[in-house]
Structures are given as C-alpha cells and as structure tokens.
C-alpha cells in the first residue's frame, strides 16, 4: 500500500489514518509530517503484528493438518486380537460339544474396586453397597473399605444392573475394572467332563484344568466329542435309575466303538458348574474316570477274549462247573449257575466264575498280564484329557500268583476305572483294535494297536449277543438294535473291606452287534432291592435295564437304523395307526 500524503493545503486528499485537524485561522483541513510518520509507524506495527499472527496460524494449521494430524485419544480396547486379525471379545476359548453348541464360555463383566486410602465415608458406602449386593454383608464391605492397602476388590464380576446401581450412588471412590467370568450355559449337564475354573478363570477341575494352557493360549473353540442331546438322554436315564434303585451313585459312558471318542459321559450326583461354592467333594467325584473299582463279571469278557485269542481255548471247549474250584484255602463258587459242564458261550451266558477261572488258569499268568497291559489296565488311562484319572490297583507281577490269575478272570483282584473297561471292551468288539479314548474332536495324537485278531472279535460279538438274548442281559435286549453285552456284580469295598449286601453293578454293551457302532457302560453304585426287581440287586435287574433304556432312547438320536425286517416294520407302522393284523 502506498502511503503518500498530499502536500497541498486546504485540499481533501488524505491518506487513510492521516491526522486531520482544523486550522486555527481559517476553516479547512491540515496535515503535519510528524503526525504522518507516527501514523505510518503505528500502521506498520499493526500490520506486522497481524502478519505474525497469521503466520503463526498458518504454521500451526500446516502443523496440525499436514504434519502430525489431530491426535484423537484412542479408546483403549481390552479385546484380544489374535494374529489372524479375528476379533474375539474374551481371552479364554469357548468349549463346544461336537455339534458346536457352546458349553463353556467367558462373558465380559466388571469388577468393583477401590483405594481404601481415599475412602472417607466407609460406613455410608458399606451400607449402600450391602443393600445392592445382598450376598455380601455390611461388615464385609466395611472391613474391605477400611483396609490399609491401596487396592481392594469390593465385588468381582458384577452384573450391568448392579454396576448401574453402584454408579447411581455417586461415590467417586468406587471404580470399575473390566473383567471376564466363565459361565456354563448347560449348567450341570457336563459337570464332570468340563470341571470348572476359579474366580481368576484358572481351571481347577476336569478339562478346564487339564487343558488350561490350551484354552488360554488360543481363542479357537475347543470342540468336544460329546453330543449334548445324547448326553442329556444318558444323564436323564441315570438320574431316574439312581432314584429308582436308591443308589449312591450312577455312572455311564457312551463311546464310539471304532474311534474311542466319548460321546456321553455322566456321573450322578453332579452339580451346577456355575456355582462355585460346593463344599461336598463327593458330588465332584468323577466316577467314570477316577472311580477305581472291582468290576466283577464284566472281566469275563476280557478273560474269554484272551483265551480264544491265545488259541489255548476253543469256542466249543467245556469246563467243569459242577463243583466249586479250590484254590489253596479259598473256594471259587458260582451264583445261580447250573452245576454242569459249560461251554465258553454258556460260561458267559450264566456268568460262571468257576469256568472262567479254569479258562484263565489254562491261559496262564504271563499271557494274562501281557493282555491286561495291552488293554491299558496296568496304568492310568492313557491320552484321556480330563484331569481326574484313577490309577488301577493290582498286584505286582511278582505277586501275581495262580489265585490272582483265577480271581481276575471274573473281576476280583484288580481294580480299574469304568473308562478302562469301556475302552478295552470297544477294542474287543470293534475288530480287535485298541485306541486310547478321547474327549477332543479330531484328536490325532493317538496311536491304535491290535490286541486280538478280527476272528476273535467276531466270535466275541456272537457270544456277547447270546448273553443278552439268553443270559443275564435280557433286560437290555432292545428290539431292532441287537445289543451285545455283559453284566457284572461285585461286592463293594468300603474302607478296605467287602461289605455284605452292598454291590456295584455294571453293564457293558455294544450295539448293533452285527456291526457295532457304539459301546455303552452303565455302573450303579449300591443299588437297593425293590419290589420290581423281586429283591435282587444284581446287575441284570438294575444296570442292565438302565442300559437298555439308554440304548432305546439314544439309538434313534445317533441315527442307528433298527434292524427290523420289512413285515415287522409294516406291522409297527400299522399298529401305531390302530390296525392290528395284516396279511402280506
């Protein structure tokens, strides 16, 4: 801008800012050089200041917009981000059943905490908190609020409603911390399989304990072999059986006979996994994998398979069961078995201890021990993922004498868990291949091995089918499903002594016997005689019908087609339509 002032007097040509005065002698405008200079300096100063401000603004705009950008404070995200970029809202992996139904998961919650050093009105806060949290007393809150520490949890894993109520109290001392809690949507359905976690989400029982690292290190769902619908049916029938026979406990395992995948595993009584305050250890006892017991006559399956496979026993051989078998000071006797010579098949059908002992003695100690080792009876069950696994009880090889050989033939003198038995039983009937059991779907960490020949396995199917048709397993003979199995009743040992009148009954079975798909084991601990069983407490009257009920209920669920011939099927259909007789 050109700042030129007119030198001419009495003209009206003035630059902006020029001082204008009236002259003293005449009416008109007057400018002065000194005034103009002052004015110029002022104008320049102001322009300079404005330029400086504009420069600062421009520099700042460039700095903010182009160089650093605006620094928005990013929200702190507590979610775990695995490498693949999948966002998961929790840190511990879900557990699902074989169909993907969630059976254990973590939910985001909050913990209520405070710094007691900053709490000034502990009494008032304690009172109001105890009104919100009914399960915590005023005294408990007061103790926490008056501690000398700088951090204390007042209540962990509170619900959103409770959080809102605490917020509404308006105490700035009360703070919240994001957290997670483990929940089990199916409550008690898989109690003994899953186990549970403590308040810090660390596994303390079952799969939660044994696979704690896996569940914490990967967020990929852990898929089980358990089928929830089948599990429910099995557990439901067990509960009914336990009530009906007034038993102390009832346990069942359903296993895929070819893969040894556990499809259902239940032991009642059990408990709701979402409650962590159980004091009674008994209900947490997983009898299926931890309960070591003498299985009784169920062992005759293994004894017979060993005899046939060794070649020392032929299927048509007979054994003298006309009189008790003397073993030193002891006598081996039978219970309600016809006193006659029994074939191998009849030995199983009538469940003869005497004949079984003779078979075992003929096979001998070495082969028997080797066979039991092959079946996994010498150690804890291999590979199974649950933490609770029982160690078998048996004599050492050194003290495995003839009477041990004889008694183990019918299930005394060796104690194993139900999981040992059903895994071995599966191997006997599936063609002779032993595969360690698993609860984890697509578990490739197992190695299978042959333990008996395929022919022996086929023979065993026929023999055990006969047990269900003609022998003690009649109550499990479900039409269409060709159940093959063996019952077992053993005296119960309490505090190291056999208790008269107390039994553990077992029924181990497979279906359909022509091409077995599943193996089922049912154990009832101390069933009582009832009117319906005519006072009997043997397996055929309690464990066996329970097994039958389970098979009848789960076989359609497992997509096993009943083996009815066509006329029978048509009769079944028409009978359901109310038409009784037909001619084909």
């Amino acid at each position, binding site marked *: 801008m050109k700042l030129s002032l007119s030198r001419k007097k009495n003209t009206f040509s003035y630059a902006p800012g020029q001082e204008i005065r009236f002259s003293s002698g005449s009416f008109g405008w007057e400018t002065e050089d000194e005034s103009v200079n002052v004015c110029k300096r002022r104008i320049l100063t102001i322009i300079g200041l404005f330029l400086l401000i504009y420069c600062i603004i421009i520099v700042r*705009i460039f700095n903010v*917009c*182009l160089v650093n*950008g*605006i620094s*928005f404070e*990013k*929200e702190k*995200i507590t*979610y775990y981000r695995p490498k693949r970029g999948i*966002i*998961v*809202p*929790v840190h511990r992996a*879900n557990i699902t059943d074989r169909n993907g*139904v*969630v*059976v254990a*998961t973590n*939910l*985001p919650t909050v913990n209520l905490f405070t710094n007691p050093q900053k709490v000034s009105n502990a009494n008032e806060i304690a009172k109001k908190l105890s009104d919100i949290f009914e399960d915590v007393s005023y005294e408990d809150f007061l103790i926490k609020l008056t501690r000398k520490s700088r951090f204390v949890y007042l209540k962990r894993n509170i619900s959103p409603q409770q959080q809102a109520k605490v917020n509404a109290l308006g105490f700035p001392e009360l703070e919240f911390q994001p957290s997670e809690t483990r*929940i089990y*949507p*199916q*409550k008690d*359905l898989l109690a003994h399989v899953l186990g549970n976690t403590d308040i810090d989400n660390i596994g303390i029982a079952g799969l939660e304990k044994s696979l704690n690292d896996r569940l914490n290190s990967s967020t990929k769902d852990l898929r089980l072999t358990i089928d*929830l*619908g089948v599990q*429910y*049916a099995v557990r*439901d029938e067990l509960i009914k059986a336990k009530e009906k026979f007034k038993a102390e406990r009832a346990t069942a395992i359903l296993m895929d006979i070819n893969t040894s995948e556990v499809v259902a595993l239940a032991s009642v009584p059990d408990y709701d996994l979402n409650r962590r305050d159980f004091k009674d250890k008994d209900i947490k006892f997983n009898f299926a994998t931890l309960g070591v017991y003498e299985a009784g006559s169920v062992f005759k399956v293994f004894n017979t398979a060993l005899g046939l496979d060794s070649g020392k026993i032929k299927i048509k051989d007979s054994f003298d069961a006309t009189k008790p078998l003397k073993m030193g000071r002891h006598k081996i006797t039978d219970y309600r078995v016809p006193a006659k010579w029994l074939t191998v098949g009849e030995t199983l059908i009538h469940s003869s201890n005497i004949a079984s002992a003779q078979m075992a003695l003929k096979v001998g100690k070495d082969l028997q021990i080797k066979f039991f080792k092959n079946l996994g009876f010498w150690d804890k069950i291999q590979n199974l993922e649950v933490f609770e696994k029982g160690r078998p009880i048996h004599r050492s090889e050194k003290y495995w004498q003839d009477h041990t050989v004889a008694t183990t033939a019918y299930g005394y003198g060796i104690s194993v868990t139900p999981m040992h038995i059903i895994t071995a039983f599966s191997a006997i009937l599936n063609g002779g291949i032993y595969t360690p059991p698993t609860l984890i779907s697509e578990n490739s960490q197992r190695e299978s091995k042959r333990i008996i020949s395929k022919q022996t396995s086929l023979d065993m199917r026929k023999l055990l089918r006969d047990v269900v048709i003609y022998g003690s397993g009649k109550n499990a003979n*479900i*039409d*269409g*499903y060709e159940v093959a199995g063996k019952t077992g009743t053993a005296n119960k040992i309490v505090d190291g002594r056999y208790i008269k009148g107390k039994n553990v009954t077992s029924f181990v079975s497979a279906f359909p016997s022509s091409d077995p798909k599943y193996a089922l084991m049912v154990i009832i601990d101390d069933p009582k005689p009832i009117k319906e069983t005519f006072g009997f407490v043997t397996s055929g009257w309690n464990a066996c019908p329970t097994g039958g009920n389970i098979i*009848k*209920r789960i*076989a*359609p*669920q497992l997509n096993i*087609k*009943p083996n*009815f011939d*066509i006329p029978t*099927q*048509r009769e*079944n*259909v*028409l*009978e*359901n*339509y*109310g*038409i009784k007789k*037909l001619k084909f």
Partner: protein
Amino acid sequence: MSNVKTAISILWVMFTLVIGSYYFVLTNDVQNLERELAQINRDIENDIRDIHILEADWSELNNPERLKTLAGKYISLDFVKPEQIINYSALPLEGELLEKPTMFAKNHNKFRVLVSSER
C-alpha cells in the same frame, strides 16, 4: 523481463496454493475416514461381543431339559421310538390305510413316520 518473472512467481504461488489446498482437503478427508473407520471397528467389536453373549444365551435357551419341557407343554412331542424308523418299502400301501380311513384320520397326527434314507 520483470513482467515475465512476476508472472512466473505468481504462477508458482498459485500452483503452491492449489497443491497446498488440495493436500489440506485430502488430509482432512483421510482423517475423517480414519475416524469413521475407528468408529466402525468399535461397532464391530461391540457387535462381536454382543454376538458372543447371545451365543451363550442361545446355548442356555437350547438346554435339552428346557426344550423337552417346552416340547411336552406346547407341541406334545415325545422321544423317537425305534419302531418309528422304517424303510420306504415298509410304508403301508394306500389301500391298507383306506380300509380304515376313520382310524387314519384319527391317528395320523399322533404318529409321524420317520423314513430312513435307505430303501
């Protein structure tokens, strides 16, 4: 010559202003998009968390005990019996059912035939 220089200078100034303005607008747009992306990511995380909670809820609602109770209460369903699973060839002939039309009409809702895939 001085006019040419002035013109070039003005051209450069104009060019700088245009580039600067474009850069400013572009950066501003990117920042807006980043903010939008951050919001979308937060929404996704919230949705995933909600879905996670709903899955647990769904599992609880599908508890077999609950389903059994509801099925018994509202639709009179019961367990499938082995006798209900049959082959196609075992289905009754039309005439057989027509012989007893009243019986069929009376009972057909009570009994659902599950036909196996194998003929």
